[in-house]
């Protein structure tokens, strides 16, 4: 396998403007170490992804070529409001700050990158191609009527060796630009990339843009694997096969060209009662949400205390009665004691519910990428 990496422009250190996003600067989050291109009006604000620290302007490495393709954000304000309303629904003793209004106000579009690689493949290939065919079979039943036979068709695959030459150009083969790419896709789901458009100047100028974490030099092997997969798919198509196995390509990978592809993400956040900030992110195309919804332990405690007041008052009344007339109503007092005990247990329910809810949310949403 050749390891030819055609010339591409390495990321250059910038201190001020980037050609394709004027009036934006490179800023880094001290907490999550993510690097962004931030428009001037949003400079030094909280990190748009982790919200754990304010961004700090500092020189960074940015590719001067504009992104090649962009997937426009398709979640409308109404969609967003609907999704957030649904998100908050059912949260017991919801944290004060976790409201649709607050989340809507803080919502912002953040673009995140993928690498697109173009290359030429030239060489020989070998492999097994699978061809579907149908065979006649039968389903047989034996019962009171004797044997009943029913003809059926079964699809089988026949693998045959094939080989050949390949001289094809592949465009826009996607290669992750973030180390957390797969996890993020798991969290907010896949994008329908058919809706992508060519990038035009100004399309992202008002929003934060996350910069790639992995440079093309490091991705050569991944890129070749993905190009190989694309070639395999085409070889199968060229062979009019439906399946493939053990396809091997021996040849050159030439004329690499790396560009960026930007995907939309909507991020917002809320504060809990201890001052901690919790991010919520949405797929900018499908609206799939990822983020934890915390219950307010303070509210739950208030409810518990409120409910505890009833048995406490009754207990005090019982004590007074007992002190005034110690010998009277012993059976009624015993019953009252049992009831008071159960009322006290019931009063613990709000606290217990909030605790288990938060526990579940914290367990299900651990990493935030």
């Amino acid at each position: 396998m050749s390891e030819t990496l055609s010339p591409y422009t390495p990321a250059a250190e910038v201190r001020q403007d980037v050609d394709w996003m004027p009036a934006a600067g490179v800023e880094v989050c001290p907490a999550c170490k993510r690097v962004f291109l931030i428009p001037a009006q949003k400079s030094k604000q909280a990190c748009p992804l982790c919200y754990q620290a304010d961004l700090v302007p500092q020189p960074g490495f940015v590719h001067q070529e504009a992104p090649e393709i962009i997937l426009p954000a398709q979640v409308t304000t109404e969609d967003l409001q609907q999704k957030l309303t649904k998100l908050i629904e059912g949260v017991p003793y919801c944290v004060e700050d976790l409201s649709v209004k607050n989340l809507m106000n803080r919502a912002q579009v953040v673009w995140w990158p993928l690498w697109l690689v173009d290359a030429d493949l030239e060489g020989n290939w070998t492999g097994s191609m699978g061809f579907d065919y149908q065979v006649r079979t039968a389903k047989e039943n034996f019962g009171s009527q004797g044997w009943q036979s029913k003809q059926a068709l079964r699809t089988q695959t026949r693998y045959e060796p094939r080989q050949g030459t390949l001289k094809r150009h592949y465009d826009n083969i996607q290669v992750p630009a973030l180390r957390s790419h797969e996890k993020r896709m798991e969290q907010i789901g896949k994008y329908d990339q058919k809706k992508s458009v060519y990038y035009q100047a100004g399309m992202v100028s008002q929003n934060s843009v996350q910069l790639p974490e992995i440079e093309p030099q490091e991705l050569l092997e991944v890129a070749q694997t993905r190009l190989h997969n694309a070639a395999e798919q085409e070889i199968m198509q060229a062979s009019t096969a439906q399946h493939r196995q053990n396809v091997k390509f021996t040849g050159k990978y030439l004329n690499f060209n790396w560009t960026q592809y930007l995907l939309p993400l909507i991020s917002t956040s809320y504060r809990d009662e201890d001052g901690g900030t919790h991010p919520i992110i949405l797929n900018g195309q499908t609206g799939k949400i990822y983020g934890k919804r915390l219950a307010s332990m303070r509210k739950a405690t208030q409810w518990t205390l409120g409910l505890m007041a009833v048995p406490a008052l009754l207990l005090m009344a019982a004590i007074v009665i007992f002190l005034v007339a110690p010998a009277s109503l012993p059976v009624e007092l015993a019953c009252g004691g049992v009831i008071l005990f159960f009322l006290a247990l019931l009063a613990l329910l709000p606290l217990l519910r909030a605790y288990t809810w938060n526990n579940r949310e914290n367990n299900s949403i651990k990493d935030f990428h």
Partner: protein
Amino acid sequence: MMVNLSRNDEFQQVASTLPGITVFAPKPKLEEERKAQTYTCPQCGGYLAYNLVTSGLACQHCGYQATLRAHTIGKVAEKQEFTVDTMAQVDQGWGKLRNLIHCQQCGAELSYPQGAVATSCPYCGSNSVNVTVSESNLFQPKALIPFSIKPDQLKQCTQAWLQDGWMHPSVLSGSARLDKFIPFYLPYWAFSTDISFDWEAEVAHTVTDRYYEASSKSWKTRTRVEWRWENGTVQKNFNNFLVNGVNAKRLNPRILDELYPFDMSKLVAFNADYLVGINANAYDVDLNAAWGEAKTKIREEARELAIEDASNRQVRNLSIDMSYANERWRYVFLPVYIAIYQFQGKNYQVMVNGQTGKVFGQKPIDWNKVWLAIILALLPGLATVLIGLPMILLAGSGMVLIFLGLILLVSGGAIAFTIYKNATRLEAI
């Protein structure tokens, strides 16, 4: 970097649906066109024929011999699937093979609608005929089992068979002339398949109860049958399930069935040389009909397997849901010697498995012997009863003899019935 694949002898370029990608596939193994061959002796110009003694080609005039290289393929002999395309061809009728046999010597068109692909012309005796000609390669046998039993071994095999059994005339082995055995390659369909089925049935369980009988004021036991539902799953592999392809009117299927088994691991790749001077029959029973016949037997075996799988063989309301997988078929030629002998003016057919030497056929039944045996079986009982009767009438005793006689009579009756049944079965072959 790119290798010139067009020079590869084993692959040939095939159509590609994308520019920039060439596709090479293995060259199809071209079926050697089975044209008419004249088997002429290189020494004297006489006719060559397959010699069963030397297992090679031999000239009947000058004794020239040519060895035949057998390529044993055994279990790897090519199997075909029941693909939709194949079966559509079967439905349309492939059976033109038998209409196209042409004698190179006298020009006779051997039109055998019912099947023989004779390699010697019945008109002129020439062995220069088209061995097989058909519209589709699928119809031609891909493998055969060569004859292992030499003609000189046949007499020994058949003599022992003729002497076997007491129901036949004593003079049979001495007077029956079994010296004209014709070697035949008979068509067989060999099927392989995996079956799996779920069964459900009510299975009889014998239960013993203790109960109190009020009338006798005692505890008693009784046995009753309790039906319990059971179910199970069974899988079974059938390999080389043979169905003969000859019309039952031409060759006795009951005799053919008795010639099994054939050792299919000895299959060799089809070579027309094996057939020179030996008769071969194309199939009369087509693939669909043969597969239908095989499935009928498989179904019965499945039913039997389901019953065996139950905890007791006594079952009722049995239901089976069965499916097949990996169904394959092969069309092969298997070696059989066929002979007709005459006894008291009547023809009898005998066949010998050309691989194992197993003999089976029709044999006359000596009904005098059979009736004598039946009488002998009944006689002890009858005699005892006949002695017992006067003793009762005259002396008032003899009940024991009558009773013993009846037992002997019933036993003798059963033996007589078995003898009669066997005799009729053997005669019906």
